[in-house]
């Protein structure tokens, strides 16, 4: 009798466990953000209501710890089922077969929704002809210009073209206290890596890799890429670009912009809450990156949502991924300032009425994704080094980029 009871009990428990599938969702929304509150109080509960057989357990990991956590989790075979992952990590984890190729496993459904995504963000999910996730949120960088400093030199609008930018930057660089040292700069940025240099390179009509992400020679050292770096160097030599590009420390670009030290900076949408948080009275004005021979191009940032190969609930995870990229959820996230990835939301009222998303959505139309390649971290550092060689150590522009091409070709060969 006792035994029978036990068997019945075991079957019951097993049955219950089977009925409810639990999936874990790793993300790095900071716990005091509007996004986090929305996710935990509205988005997940509503999903669980429409899919009573699936339970979502969200796990917050700080962005700075996420990569480490993913590496350890990969080695131990213990990752979350669904992960919100920085776009530039996706090809690297796809290459070591940790991510589910959604265009293969969920081929039919993927084909149905593929066209609803903005092409720039969607391209960041692709590696080796397959898609290893869906875009979740996106961003880009635009040019902020300081109205007060502009008016001081008789300007009233941000630059539209590269020629204007160069002219303005020179006008806005000053030695105010007359000690022989510049103390107001026309332009400031936080580094020289591709995140910072892509707007320059592509707006000048240059490239890093070709369309297929398999060739650097003739692209990274193309005429446009050379001109971009040369123009940047000339401006730097004229004293118009602050030391923050080479890690000079001190006043960051946001603070310097708010304190009228830097007249123009490159910034993503997160600049608004940060600047307004510290300087509630600061006025922020933004334009798309000044256009050169290649038009106005900027760099795509953001996160993708991926399913891990270690997941035992891939179907349930896919339901959650589809839900997170659906119109309703994407729109709900706009309210808490997360930029959407759907074509259908570009012209949406929520975007048009948003205090500062419009300029970003306009910039996103032509923004370039950093090449989705598992060796991107290396390519990133090679590019950073090439620019630093020229800016810090006065190397010849063409020679540096030729050398970069050679090194990047080696990285690409490593993954063939």
């Amino acid at each position, binding site marked *: 009798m006792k035994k029978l009871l036990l068997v019945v009990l075991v079957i019951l428990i097993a049955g219950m466990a089977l009925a409810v599938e639990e999936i874990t969702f790793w993300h790095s929304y900071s716990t005091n953000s509007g996004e986090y509150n929305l996710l935990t109080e509205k988005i997940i509960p509503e999903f669980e209501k429409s899919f009573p057989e699936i339970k979502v357990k969200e796990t917050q990991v700080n962005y700075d710890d996420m990569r480490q956590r993913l590496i350890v989790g*990969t080695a131990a075979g213990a990752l979350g089922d669904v992960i919100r992952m920085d776009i530039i990590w996706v090809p690297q984890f796809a290459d*070591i077969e940790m991510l589910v190729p959604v265009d293969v496993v969920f081929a039919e459904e993927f084909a149905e929704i593929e066209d609803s995504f903005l092409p720039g963000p969607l391209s960041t999910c692709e590696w080796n002809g397959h898609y290893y996730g869906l875009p979740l949120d996106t961003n880009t960088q635009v040019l902020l210009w300081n109205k007060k400093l502009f008016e001081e030199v008789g300007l009233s609008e941000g630059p539209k073209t590269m020629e204007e930018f160069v002219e303005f930057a020179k006008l806005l660089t000053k030695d105010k206290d007359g000690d022989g040292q510049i103390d107001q700069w026309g332009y400031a940025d936080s580094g020289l890596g591709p995140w910072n240099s892509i707007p320059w390179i592509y707006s000048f009509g240059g490239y890093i890799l070709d369309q297929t992400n398999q060739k650097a020679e003739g692209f990274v050292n193309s005429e446009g890429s050379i001109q971009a770096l040369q123009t940047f160097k000339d401006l730097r030599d004229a004293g118009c670009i602050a030391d923050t590009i080479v890690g000079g420390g001190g006043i960051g670009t946001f603070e310097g912009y708010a304190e009228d030290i830097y007249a123009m900076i490159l910034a993503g949408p997160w600049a608004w809450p940060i600047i307004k948080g510290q300087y509630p009275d600061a006025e922020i004005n933004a334009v798309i990156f000044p256009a050169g021979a290649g038009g106005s191009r900027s760099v795509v940032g953001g996160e993708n949502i991926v399913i891990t190969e270690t997941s035992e609930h891939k179907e349930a995870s896919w339901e959650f991924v589809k839900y997170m990229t659906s119109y309703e959820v994407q729109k709900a996230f706009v309210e808490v300032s997360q930029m959407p990835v759907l074509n259908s939301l570009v012209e949406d009222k929520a975007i048009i009425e948003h205090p500062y998303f419009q300029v970003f959505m306009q910039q996103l139309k032509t923004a370039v994704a950093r090449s989705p390649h598992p060796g991107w971290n290396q390519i990133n550092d090679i590019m950073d080094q090439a620019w630093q*060689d020229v800016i810090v150590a006065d190397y010849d522009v063409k020679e540096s980029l030729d050398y970069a091409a050679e090194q990047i070709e080696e990285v690409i060969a490593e993954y063939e």
Partner: protein
Amino acid sequence: MKRTTRRKFAGFLFVLPGMMAYLVWTIYPILNGFYMSLFKWNLNPKIPNDFIGLENYIELFQDSQFYVALVNTIKYAIITVPFQMVLGLLVALLLNKGMKGQTLFRLLFYLPVITSWVVVSVLFQYLFATRGGIVNFILKDVFHLIKTDIKWLAQTSTAMIPIYVLGIWKGIGWTMLIFLAGLQSIPKQLYEAARIDGANSWKLFTKVTAPLLRPTFVFQLVMLTIGGFNVFLSVFIMTGGGPRNSTHVLNTYMFKEAFEYFHFGYGAAIAVVFFLMVFTISQLQRRFLKREPY
């Protein structure tokens, strides 16, 4: 069981927990690191690893970036270790005189030691900022030693200096504490006897203090050298290896190869070379400095 065997067995049991921890957390990773260094190691355990023999090592010894990191690491140890010891000794001598408020000063000097590397690295970035950094302010506006601001962290020729200064400043408290302990263990009678023999304070220091502090010196030299070779966070945060990869040390370079580029086998090869180097140097130091002073 015989009594002696039982006692041996009990002894073994007492050592066992520590021994296990040492085997699991120290010996096993070292051996496993060596094993990994022979492969093109893949992070995903389901993908088989390619055995490539010594290829990682061959590549390593032809890698100019590795030598930059190696030289930086050795330079860091050579520069920071003596400064920490000399300055720590000076502070210890001052604070051993029984002057007023010395407990407070001991605490103040020791504070940097227990402060997080992350916090002080960020702090030093600000101190050494080109514009608005207090170091340039003092040099230029207070003492007029320089005409234009020095781009401390923004040029290759000076970027290591803030890292050295941080390492020394953060280490003085520890050397001070160890020297203080050493100083207090010197019997007072020796000083009295020397004074009766007519020794002045310099003689007291060279003939009594210094020789009796010798074991402390040796201990510090070995520990600080190992610590110096392990420099990581200050470089990682203050320069990230830049500008132009000029400030990489072995740890930052290893971290980059393994965790940024997923070259785990290569990173393991760096770790093995690093281990052999530190091991050899500590053994040499121990051998040459073992002799008892008196």
